[in-house]
């Protein structure tokens, strides 16, 4: 309630609960449900790709410490490129 408490100052201004307010706002989103779902999926993929970079680097360190460097390291660079490029996609679609 604290977040919305100031909205209750004027008696004529607001005569409904926060739950009612959220319900009314949600109604505005209903026509865009599918798009909203798509945006959430894309944003989750953004988070996943961002989280992948330190994991990839950790794996790369293991490769570099061991004897089996070689092509794995080049694959690692490619994976970083891919993971770094992914965020552009959901942000672009979300903005549209």
């Amino acid at each position, binding site marked *: 309630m604290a977040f919305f408490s100031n909205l209750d100052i004027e008696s004529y201004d607001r005569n409904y609960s926060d739950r009612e307010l959220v319900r009314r706002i949600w109604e505005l989103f209903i026509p865009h449900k599918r798009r909203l779902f798509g945006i959430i999926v894309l944003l989750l993929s953004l988070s996943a790709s961002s989280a992948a970079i330190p994991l990839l680097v950790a794996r790369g360190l293991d490769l570099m410490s061991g004897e089996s460097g070689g092509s794995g390291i080049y694959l690692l660079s490619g994976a970083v490129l891919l993971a770094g490029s992914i965020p552009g996609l959901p942000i672009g679609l979300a903005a*549209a």
Partner: protein
Amino acid sequence: MTTTSAEFTLPEYHQGDRRGPLRWILSHALRYWYLFALLILGAVGNAGLASVVPIYTGRALEAISGAQPQLDALLNIAWMIAITQLIRSVLQFGRNFGAELMAQNIERDIRAELYISLLGKSMTFHNLQPVGDTMARATNDVREVNFMFSPGINLVVGSANFIIMPLIFAPGYHPALIAAPLFFTITYFLALGQYLHELRPITAGVRKAFGRLNTRLAEALDGIETVKGMAQEQQEIGLFQQYASSFRDYFIHQGDVEARFVPFLLMAISQAGGLFHAIWLYQRGALVLGDVVAYFGLLLLLGFPTFISLFAYSQVSLGVAGARRILELINRENDLDQNAEGAVAPLRGEVIFREVAFAYETGDTSLNGINLRIQPGQTVAIVGQTGSGKTTLVKLINRTYDATAGQILVDGVDVRDWNLESLRQQISIIEQDIFLFSRTIRENIAFGKPDASAAEIETAARTAQAHEFITSFNEGYDTVIGERGVTLSGGQRQRLALARAFLTNPHILVLDDSTSAIDSATEDHIQRAIYAAAQGRTTFIITHRLSQIRWADQIVVMRNGRIVAVGSHAELMQTSEAYRRIFQETDH
């Protein structure tokens, strides 16, 4: 854009450099150079200390990956990172605080500059400028300039330092390692230039579309009675939706351009390429493992400028578009000037019109060949059909409008040679459409003389026959009018306006059909009040009420923007067909 002086200026107020939007913004920002310095200091410090983390992480890796792990060194590194990040948080706070304070100060300053400018504009300007658009500029566009500084410029400056740090520290590990950050920097700024170029017309369109939307809204609400009376709700809804869709389309277009901004790809190429390069050097023994980790950590710093570039630059672009619109309004040509060096003297009240003509900017001629002489203290009744130019004629006396030809002399001095403030303070006009502020009755009466005593206000109210109805309210003179207050009848509003005029004790009084809404029960009282008020001052009365016309010293009959007859009531009834026709129409 034409720069002219405003009608009224407040010399103590800061006025920005109005030659262009960027100069204007800069001139306001430079007033707060110390806050900008705080912003820069915070930004450089924040980015510099952010670089400490990957650099020391690399050292930490080296400390523990040797045959003999150096735990003491690791502890020192941990302390170093903790202390530097603590300092960084303070610097970050300074950066954000400086930017926010500067943004709020600039918003206040430009809002005040715009408001003062609007108050100083001529009536011609205000007649032509849609209120909704002005409101959009005075509220949202001003707000956009605020957002331009915080978060806009705050993040732009902050993130720019995150681009610089890898350029500074990467060559420390190996000179060739500057390649990846250098590639990013060059391509980032090239892409940014193109991005801003594409964004500029779109952000200008966003602001313009919002102005149109507001104009439509203001006009529909202002004319709500007409809309409802003519059952045009559906049409208005259609129009409003059309403007709302246009505003949305501009925003989507902006989002489309933002989405195609390529720094994410550039960052990914730089990081992947940089990592590959570092590993390649490591395999050739030019780097140790800790250097690779530290270098890649530095490349990760590029993520901040990449991410914020999606919205920070469009915020800056919107701010510049907003500033351009505000400045366009401020700089728009003003017909009148204050003439601070003009004549300042108590008026006697002589008014002479000499071959006066006037046309509104639309080109329609409202007045032509007006010649009239009014002696000090005379009462002049102006009569004529609707649209004959009666109101326009009196509005030339206090320079609400300036005559387009001829001269109006007040006490023998051309009105354009009077100090405008001095002239207007001594002329009081009560309009047909009386405006009362949403304040107390006392404040409304004392509007033209804020330092008036309670006794003076009461005397003015009694003279205007308003005291009785004012004291019938529970709060008396402290009753608030309008929104959240009492609603007044047309007659009550007019009596308050008369009280307001009486209080300023003007030397020239203009009553523009101001007693039209007074009911017959109070008409006699108000007639006596006006008669009393007219004594000792030049009074113009625009009316068709015979009771007011009869005692006028001169009656001026107007038709199609010209004076067709001047004389007393008896004379005009004998000689003027136009005058007789007015009273025949009134009688019916």
